[in-house]
């Protein structure tokens, strides 16, 4: 009885709440829908494409060597890693390091090749504060290494889920990227990385993570948007909730995990 009276009073008081005037959401939503590709119908097209692709792949499945190569991939979050063909890479998928790769405890290797031409082709460069305002999830910054500072470039890609990319460049050689961190929400982004030389399962804060060592081609696709590049650095990928994190660095695994564990909300 007391609860009923209390509820009644709460409702009465809450009715007096003064809200800001509701903006014309419908107008802005319809403008967005009209000005962008209609993702639901892109998905329908994609579904047809996938159907055709599946028919094609099914026919390939009849060939034993092709089947081995096709079905062998590792999925983490929205990232799908295709190791080298099974026949030649059984050992490669294990934790052994190829002779031509630096040991994971080594000091950082050569800086990554310039990403700038690629980055210039990515729409959505913005400021960090705007990225946090735009992205519907916390944009986190590494607090390790302590002298890292804020990213030099920030991008928010708006395509059925806002993907944020933070990029740090070498202060001595600003054309060289030393680290990038991607926040990829659930949506239609699909990232394929083909044939990295080492794939190792690890953990970040108790969450499953994958460590892939380049070089390898990377293909990112979202509906009609696609870009590719050759990655020569290493990549740590993990997921937390709806977000897939992708840390690209030339640092060894131990350092990459320390960076991943140090992520904090923007102060």
């Amino acid at each position, binding site marked *: 009885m007391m609860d009923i009276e209390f509820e009644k009073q709460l409702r009465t008081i809450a009715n*007096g709440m003064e809200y800001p005037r509701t903006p014309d959401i419908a107008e802005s939503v319809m403008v967005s829908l009209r000005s962008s590709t209609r993702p639901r119908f892109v998905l329908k097209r994609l579904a047809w494409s996938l159907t055709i692709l599946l028919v094609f792949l099914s026919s390939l499945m009849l060939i034993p060597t092709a089947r081995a190569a096709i079905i062998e991939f590792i999925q983490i979050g929205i990232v799908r890693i295709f190791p080298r063909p099974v026949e030649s890479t059984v050992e490669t998928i294990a934790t052994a390091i190829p002779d031509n790769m630096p040991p994971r405890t080594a000091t950082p290797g050569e800086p990554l090749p310039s990403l700038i031409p690629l980055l210039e082709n990515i729409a959505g460069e913005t400021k960090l504060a705007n990225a946090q305002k735009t992205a519907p999830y916390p944009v986190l910054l590494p607090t390790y290494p302590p002298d890292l500072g804020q990213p030099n470039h920030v991008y928010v890609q708006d395509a059925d889920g806002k993907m944020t990319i933070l990029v740090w460049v070498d202060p001595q050689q600003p054309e060289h990227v030393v680290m990038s961190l991607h926040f990829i929400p659930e949506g239609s982004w699909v990232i394929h990385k083909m044939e990295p030389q080492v794939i190792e399962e690890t953990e970040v804060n108790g969450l499953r993570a994958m460590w892939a060592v380049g070089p390898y081609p990377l293909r990112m696709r979202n509906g009609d948007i696609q870009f590719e590049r050759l990655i020569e650095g290493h990549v740590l990928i993990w997921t937390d909730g709806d977000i897939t994190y992708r840390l690209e660095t030339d640092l060894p695994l131990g350092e990459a995990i320390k960076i991943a564990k140090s992520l904090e909300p923007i102060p």
Partner: protein
Amino acid sequence: MDESTLIRRAVNGDTAVWEPLVRIHQEAVFRLSYLLLGDPDDAEDIAQETFLRAWNHLERFDTTRPLRPWLLSIASNLASNRRRSVGRYLSALTRAFRNEPALPDTEEKSLQRLRANELWKAVQNLNATDQQIVYLRYFLDLSVAETSETLQIAEGTVKSRLSRALEKLRNIIRDDFPVLSEGQEL
């Protein structure tokens, strides 16, 4: 045209019918986002994102169910994600409380607004789950069934969570918000 017809047409790709559906629900979605985030600009962003996301995933929506709880559920999730950035949330709340309400038309209205604002502040002392349920039931006036649909929990769970949240809220009001108790049996 009733809402279920509009939804069915939207599911079949009729963009034009999405606009009236947004207009029907935009106020509830915006208000819930505002209550959860404390900032009108953020609330507008979340509301817009909610309707775009709903449109993009409309094929997954069960057209036999009401639309509003589903929309509020999306808005609530998006707002919760945004709130996790603690600094932003606190600064938004600071802005919200710095903006004093407009001058009232009457003394009685002024008192109503003051009390409602105090209640909002009191609710913010609850945890996020309890806040959600209180906003849905008392600020947006959703039924138990709609609250259950929005939070995707059983109606019995809604009632038990509400009961616990109300108990906590009653204590908070008694200890820290005496203005809400004045002359009332809160």
